[in-house]
């Protein structure tokens, strides 16, 4: 029987490829084996941190004898090792011609994954965007591939929603930035605005401003985003 993990990973500017949240499926009596201890919080930055309500470490839901547990990383050492390598490959090695389509890769040592890269605009990030990856990982190649269609839809739909929400937040924070340049340059105030923006961009371009780690929660302005990702992963795993 195939085992699955659903993971959100991030290319942190400080720590490189790292796992943010990982959801696993297990029989209810064994769910405690997937929990991370309370003192297991890594010394991570805001970008990599799994920020949950009430400073919790684990999320769990049980449906009909099956439990779904979300943690920042898998408690099992072998799963941790496999996932870490797959995350590293996803965000550092693998590339594709069309970022809108998922890719599949894997081997018999680390397992297999279907993943999709997506980017969230962030003016404080290197290159003005942050790079994430949603991944479905399995230890059985064939089982994973046979769910290609459904997994692709799940990945596409949820990524689209995250990006829309992040874009909405960005637009809310910088309403004038979205105006066309011709309009802003028509008045004096517009020229000042343009000048300020240019100065800001120049600071960032010259890397004089400090890199500010920012969580996906901040980018989407949704404190419960990771709980929602947990629920989304459950929906996906229930269809396996």
């Amino acid at each position, binding site marked *: 029987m195939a085992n699955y993990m659903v993971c959100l990973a991030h290319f942190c500017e400080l720590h490189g490829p790292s796992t943010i949240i990982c959801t696993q499926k297990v029989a209810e009596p064994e769910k405690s084996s997937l929990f991370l201890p*309370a003192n297991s919080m890594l010394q991570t930055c805001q970008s990599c941190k799994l920020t949950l309500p009430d*400073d919790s470490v684990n999320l*769990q839901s049980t449906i009909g004898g099956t439990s779904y547990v979300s943690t920042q990383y898998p408690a099992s050492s072998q799963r941790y090792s496999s996932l870490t390598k797959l995350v590293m490959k996803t965000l550092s090695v693998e590339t594709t*011609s069309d970022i809108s389509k998922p890719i599949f890769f894997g*081997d018999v040592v680390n397992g297999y994954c279907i993943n999709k890269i997506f980017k969230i605009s962030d003016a404080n990030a290197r290159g003005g965007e942050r790079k994430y990856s949603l991944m479905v990982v399995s*230890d059985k190649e064939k089982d994973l591939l046979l769910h290609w269609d459904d997994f692709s839809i799940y990945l596409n739909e949820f990524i689209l929603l995250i990006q829309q929400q992040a874009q909405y937040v960005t637009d809310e924070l910088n309403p004038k930035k979205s105006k066309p340049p011709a309009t802003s340059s028509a008045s004096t105030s517009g020229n000042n605005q343009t000048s300020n923006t240019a100065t800001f961009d120049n600071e960032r371009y010259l890397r004089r401003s400090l890199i500010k780690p920012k969580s996906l929660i901040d980018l989407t302005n949704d404190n419960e985003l990771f*709980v929602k990702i947990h629920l989304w992963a459950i929906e996906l795993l229930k269809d396996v």
Partner: protein
Amino acid sequence: MLGRLFKQQSTPTLNNQHLPNGGNHNQIHNHINNQTVPPNVNNINSYNSSANSSSNSSIHTPGNHGGSAPSLIPNSYDDSYMREILYGISDPLKPFPYSTKLFRIVICQDGGSLRSKQILFDSAFGATASEPLATKSPPISRRDSGNLKTILTPQNQKLHHNLNDLNDYMFGCGIPTNESQSSTKLHILNNPSGTSASTPTSTANTMVLISRLFSISDELPTTTNSSDWNPAATLPIKEASIPRKLHSRFSIGLVIPIENDQITDAILQNWNEISHFLIILQKMITKKLIHILESTPNSSNSGSLSSNSTPSSYSTSIWTCPFVSNKRIQFPSHILQSELDLNNQVFKLIKLMNYNSNIPRLINLHQVMLKNPSNPIVYNWISEILNWTEFKDGNISFLASLFSIVLTMRHGLKRKPLDGVIESDKKSRDISRIVIMTGNPMVAKKLIFIINGLIPNIEINQVEDVSKKSAVEEEEISRVGCISPSPATPSARADKVIVDVDDATDSGDETDQFSFDPPPRGLGAGDGRRGGAGSIFSSTSPKPIPIRQPSVNSGSLGSPDSIKGWEIPSSYNGSTLGKPRIETDTKVIPIVQQAPVHRNSLSKSQSMAYLSSSLNSSLSSSISNYSLTKLSGSFLEKWKNFGTSGGGNGASFGNGSMNGSSYGNGNYGTGFGVTGNNGGGAYGSFNEPNINKRGSIASLRSPPSPALDSEEFFNTYGKITNPSISAHKNLSRTQSMFDINEGLTTSTPPSLQQHIIRTNTSILVKDNGTLTGGDSINPKGSNFNQELIKTRCLSIMKSSPKYSSDVENEKTLTVEVNEERDSLIARRGLLPNVAFSDEFRQEFLIQSCPINPKLESLVMNAMKNDLLFFQNNCQVEHVNSKTLFISLRAREIKLIEMSNGESNHQLGNDNENHHHHHHNNNNNNNNNKYNNYKTTIRKIFTPQKNCGNKERIASIEEKFRALNYAFGCTNGERERDNERLSRIVVDLIQ
């Protein structure tokens, strides 16, 4: 790192984007780049000959791949009835017209430079026309490859992707990894031209890149699997490599064009087969590259790199090899370009994709029959059986003998031949196939339809059950046919002694294993213990039908005239066939009231043996459909209900009469003209079943000449057919099409109403509620799933999750989940059982193939490959591959078995029916057990001799007779009659 990043490549490479246009083209590509693989598989026959033959030079001969010559399209001859019974739908399944020029195989090397990779082989490249590659048997040298660079030209650059891009996708473009294990990748690429494929017949606008990364010189990885995380490839590979740590990776890239959004059907449903192809290719390339390393002058001076070398000799030789520098292997570019067998791989890939994704697979009829025995397709199945026994078998017991052997080996047919190895397979793995050699696809399809009713299907995740059953089956099969049954003691079962056929006359206690208790001679004497056929016999008032007993027990067969075979006679004389049919009609009718049809009496005529043409077969099936109306009773009511409640779904199950003229106007393949008029006239004839018509119409109709075109035949047939008969026929066919939607898959309860939506390779099922409004559902099912998943995601994103702290763990939140949800449309892959393939394919479990004197050897080659593959790559200790080879022309059933033989195996005594071959390809003592294999060929059935299990065959024939009786005896109590038939069928196929 940065130094490597900007290091220029040290070996000659060739970027196809910078090559001049024009120049010489490889003749292969000159040819195939201008054509599209037709939807039917026949036109690819032109490739078959070249690919199958050992002579590679034929590939380079212009005209060999012409493919333009019109050829028969067997599948296109299927009328809607045939499509219904074989595929579950009446409309033809649309094949994907592959464009051969879009296929591509590239082999690249990562020699260490981040900026460039070396191309070792690219099928999109040409070679010198004046010096065909076929004449270059040895690999070209490094200097040759440099010259090759100047003459290679990219062809159809707009059709192919930039090789640098492909290298990025295959190897990745970031930090270099230091891995040695093989890894697989799948990328979806856009068409490089930005539009759909330029050929007018191809709609490919998406390409799939399947990559395989491997090393030839690294140590095998050590995997530490645990119980909860045990990565497994679809098919394992035992990688042969040089035991020396060298950091070089190689990659195979397969570029396959697909129709938009058809990745699952075209690629993923055939992933086992593609993985197998990749493994074979990888091993071939590894062998070639190691050979090149060995054969280079410098290395040869220092010792061989063969596997016999010790690590120390490796260490000496590997460093002196000119292709090894700085712990890396760097072969010259295009060093494999002249390898002919690599060029052949392109054609093999094209064929693999075309055959496996375009030939429609059979529905799981067995499951339909078990879950819904009253489904009208069951009656089609019964009818075809009775027609076969009546018109084809005559006095011989071919079909019963076939049943007896198929029933014992059918559990081995639950799994693909290339299915992966599970834990229980490590000790033993069985691979089974059924191959029918025929000159008449229509006849073979009918037989395959019958056989298909016996073959269960399983889900992929149920293979564990198969392994359990296969052990039992192995015992069964060892005692079937010409093998003497042994007492069912463990010790006796463990000893698989192959006995000569001539000695195999004892029946033993075989019936204990068989699920059906045959009634005693005489149909009315059933004891009813099983509640099946036996009970119905006791409940029926008619006396037993005096059916002629086929001479099974005596082992002798019918008259010499009856053994002329079922294939199309070379010359046809309609009058000779017409007369016996009239005679049989007169013979049949006297069994009128209680036992109205005495089917075996129809087969008295020796000329029945000639009734094997496709057209005649169609005719008999048409009549059998007509015969279905005799037992209409409950079906008609069901039909009425469907008509009044449904309607409007294109099926037109209205209350009206059915236009029976569709056969007459030649549109036999495009529907049956069921109209919605309130005629109701057809009902009258249905309500008065005339059991005599079945045999008489079938027998009286003169079969058309085999040379007659089928459409022409149906035109003719339509003119001479009584409209009311056509109406009956249309009714049963349409009805079966409708009702077959129930219970089509193994994964859903039979009570669910299901509309069949299928593709060539899979079937879509929604296990929660009935899908209505088929038009709104994308044939692929993705529209429905997409909307559903979109709704789910949106509701999650917009919702405010409810959570609470866990009482046991304060750092754990328990999140509430909405358990109510609609289910997605699921896709169930169908087993690779096909009706007809114009070439034997080892990927198929059941297939019929045209007559080919080499077919049997092709089958045996595939079986040998089974042994080699599962032993060498999957580490299976004992592999047993068997094929039931049926020759319809010779009316022979052979069971070919091949297994890795024990070392103390005694060579069998050859005789005409039983052949043993003991092979020993003992090149290496260490692999001795992998190179020994044993072949056994047993003739289960010939016109002269029946070596099957007598009791079992007799039991099956009893059931046939029971079917015959129950099928014809439909007087009044139709529900009971139907139930009776259902019970017999279930007993027969269980």
